[in-house]
């Protein structure tokens, strides 16, 4: 039995302007000790998926429409709020993107860590403090015993993100969900933070879901990848499958658009257009209007299904585009005005 097995999870937001289908039919599995990367642009539904797993979606306007989130075989969506609370922060914890706003600025780090421990464990204050200091030492905060008394603003951005990680890991969760944990950080600090997560994983076998838009981070950290676009998974597989044999046009475009892979004197490859408006129904392949190698002029057929190609490598293949064609850089593309959201 996998540690986490999400089946056909759909989440939407019911706004005055219409229903936004933020995540549709998401399925994923995660074994103990594995790292899954979820990649996509902002608005692709990658964060919504994570928030749905922990049921942190504000309801209303959000609504989990259907699906199952099986954690060790138990469906989290069927649990009561109090049962859910005993899982959050204890069995599954989450790291958020912004270390500046995720800590309470008015409370000492020690207070916040001790609270996180004592909510789930019946232990006295001193023991909890000791545990908090150990947790800070583990994430590489020097002089943890005295710095535990500091307030969040006394730490630098990187240190604060470490405190966040310490807080997320203090109860030895089985699953860690990290939503863009390094986006706000410098590359040097990013490397340190990813090392801490990897080290922890090696030692305790924690499973990790890493949400990011940076393919570089995925390449070095994840065992499996899911690429999301417009609320759907368009491709999934092992990291090697997705990086060395990308099949979906979006995955290939995304890979092509990384600046560090491009020669200096050529124009950078850009993906034309903007993602579709999720409050309107999307016909056929959601990426089609931006597809660099379409075969037909228009497509409005049924949405393509996610199908397995080989050994766990799945792609949402619409059959309207030529997957074998190489992507060519279109020079004049930066002239194309993006459509308004």
């Amino acid at each position, binding site marked *: 039995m996998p540690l986490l097995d999400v089946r056909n999870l759909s989440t939407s937001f019911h706004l005055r302007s219409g229903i936004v289908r933020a995540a549709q039919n998401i399925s994923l599995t995660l074994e103990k000790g594995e790292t899954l990367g979820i990649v996509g642009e902002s608005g692709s539904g990658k964060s919504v998926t994570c928030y749905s797993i922990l049921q942190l979606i504000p309801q209303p306007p959000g609504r989990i429409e259907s699906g199952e989130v099986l954690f060790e075989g138990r469906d989290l969506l069927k649990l009561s709020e109090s049962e859910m609370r005993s899982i959050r922060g204890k069995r599954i914890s989450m790291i958020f993107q912004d270390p500046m706003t995720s800590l309470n600025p008015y409370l000492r780090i020690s207070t916040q860590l001790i609270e996180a421990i004592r909510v789930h464990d019946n232990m006295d204050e001193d023991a909890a403090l000791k545990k908090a200091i150990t947790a800070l030492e583990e994430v590489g905060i020097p002089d943890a015993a005295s710095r535990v008394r500091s307030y969040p603003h006394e730490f630098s951005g990187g240190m604060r993100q470490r405190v966040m990680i310490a807080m997320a890991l203090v109860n030895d969760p089985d699953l860690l969900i990290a939503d863009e944990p390094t986006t706000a950080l410098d590359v040097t600090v990013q490397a340190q933070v990813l090392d801490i997560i990897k080290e922890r994983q090696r030692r305790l076998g924690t499973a990790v879901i890493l949400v990011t838009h940076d393919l570089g981070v995925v390449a070095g950290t994840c065992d499996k990848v899911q690429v999301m676009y417009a609320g759907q998974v368009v491709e999934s597989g092992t990291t090697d499958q997705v990086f060395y044999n990308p099949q979906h046009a979006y995955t290939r475009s995304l890979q092509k658009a990384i600046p560090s892979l491009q020669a200096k004197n050529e124009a950078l490859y850009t993906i*034309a257009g903007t993602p579709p408006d999720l409050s309107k129904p999307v016909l056929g392949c959601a990426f089609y209007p931006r597809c660099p190698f379409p075969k037909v002029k228009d497509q409005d057929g049924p949405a393509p299904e996610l199908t397995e190609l080989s050994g766990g490598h799945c792609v949402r293949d619409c059959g309207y585009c030529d997957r074998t064609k190489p992507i060519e850089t279109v020079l004049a593309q930066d002239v194309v005005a993006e459509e308004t959201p």
Partner: protein
Amino acid sequence: MSRTADIVSATEERLSAPLAVEEFEKGSSLWDDAWHRLKRNRLAMISLFLFIAIVLFCVVGPLLSPYDGEQQDLLKGAQGPSGEHWFGTDTLGRDLMVRTMEGGRISLLVGMVATFVALMIGVVYGATAGYLGGKVDAVMMRIVDTLYALPFTIFVILLMVAFGRSLWLIFVAIGAVEWLSMARIVRAGVIGLKKQEFVEAAVSLGYSHTRIILRHLIPNVLGPVIVIATLTVPAVMLLEAFLSFLGLGVQPPNASWGVLINEGQQNMEIFPWLLMFPAFFFALTLFSLNFLGDGLRDALDPKSAKD
């Protein structure tokens, strides 16, 4: 030709086609958006219409009434509401409906003019202090603090004693006190905005201080200022009523709602309508302005709204 190339050429075609004036899209400013949000707020809209109705009632009403607010008819003194005098008459036989309307004119005028005075001084003063910062700001705000510390009632009494009682003096006196909080709010807003990059961009374009304050800072702090102004109008009307109650406000034969309520409460037990009608309109105005202010706050700052 590939599809992307199609898009490129199509876009370039569209971009290079000569544009007639009619083709320009009309943008929707943040003010337009706020107005749309306000229109959806039922309570605020009812309040807005109610307030407009009260203003019209007070301004137009006396012109249509057969009675004159100063015309006394002692034979018909202190009569209850009737077909002839809908609101009844006061102890001197003056038509209470016209008195209420004329009192409303004065009260609303005091409320709005004093708020306007406060708005003008407060916005310019606060924006200047906040924008210039440093020592200038420190001195300007200490002046505000000092004025805050002055007991308002004594201040007004002093003014009245020194310059005599006049309606304009009330405007000045109240405006001179109300601008203080306005200035503080604007200053806080400007200090927050000053760090925003669009202000730095304006500085790097070499715009003058006046232009930056007037075009780039003030329009962006106007949202909360409008809300405060809407809530200041009823506060000022209450102040005026309070002054009139003390006998420091509007002098007879002129009346404001404050004066009428004062007269009414003296005869409250015998002729209750003398208190009821002016008090009712006064309360209605205060309610509608407060609800309108709340609605404006939600409309102008959608993040603070509940949904």
